[in-house]
């Protein structure tokens, strides 16, 4: 029983939210949409993972809009209208954004080309270092002569 008290204490401690309200029981759809949106005050966290106040409010608003029958696209547009496309984790595939989507592929191609050139160069140098039979015999003759 003595061991239980800290557990009870911590259970209450963790259950607290900043505003003192119980955490709202949100449907998984809310988190699915929130995971595609950026937490505006965080570094590399989505609105689904973050516990910042603004993310909690975003999830609450998403739940509210879902209740009103809005689609995921409409909800995302709502946030884009306020924050710009920056708020989307995946930038829309159009215009200059294609550069972002293709950047990994371009990087891989550049690396592949460089690596291929390096291997070709290394192979050529290795070939240069190899002695022909005549050269080998000439060297052997010189050594014997000395």
């Amino acid at each position: 029983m003595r061991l239980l008290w800290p557990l009870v204490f911590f259970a209450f401690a963790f259950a607290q939210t900043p505003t003192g309200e119980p955490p709202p029981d949100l449907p998984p759809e809310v988190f699915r949409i929130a995971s595609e949106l950026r937490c505006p005050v965080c570094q590399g966290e989505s609105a689904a993972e973050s516990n910042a106040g603004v993310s909690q409010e975003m999830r609450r608003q998403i739940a509210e809009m879902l209740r009103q029958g809005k689609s995921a696209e409409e909800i995302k547009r709502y946030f884009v209208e306020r924050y710009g496309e920056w708020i989307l984790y995946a930038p829309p595939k159009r215009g200059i954004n294609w550069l972002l989507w293709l950047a990994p592929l371009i990087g891989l191609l550049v690396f592949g080309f460089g690596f291929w050139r390096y291997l070709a160069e290394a192979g050529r140098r290795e070939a240069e270092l190899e002695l022909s039979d005549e050269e080998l015999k000439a060297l052997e003759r010189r050594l014997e002569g000395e």
Partner: protein
Amino acid sequence: MRRWVYFSLVPVLGALFWWGMQRDPGELKSVLVGKPAPDFELSLLPPYRAEWGERFRLSEHRGKPVVLNFWASWCYPACYEEAPILEAGWRRFRDRVLFFGVNTQDREADALEFIAQFNLTFPHGYDPRGKVGIDYGMYGVPETFFIDAEGRVRYRHAGAITAAELEKRIREVLP
């Protein structure tokens, strides 16, 4: 040839660095610039109810430019730096410009303490959830929006505002 490629990278990276350093981090362009300022209604914090009423609705104050400031008592030091500047700006321009503070994601008692500390006389609304902040695409406190007399957002300043910047932006929204 290869060396030339590497050397040409130096000025390119240098130029990129210079360009990055020239950018003002406070000038975080809002997608709302040029668009009508989102309307909101908030309950006013108790010290302002006698003069401004129980609730404040932005659209009821059209016809005058508005300086809309988002802040919180936990936002240290930026909100503490700009609070006296905002109060001075309000005292100077109150005939021509309305100042409104949105206390964001804060405890009321802490907000009232902050207001008392700086003796803020312009009205402040209480937004514990930060709902209005999301409507304005706010990244973090403090942020200040300049709304013209027609109700359009003209500028957003992120971070603590200076007296010079405040005056410059107010003059831009003055009719």
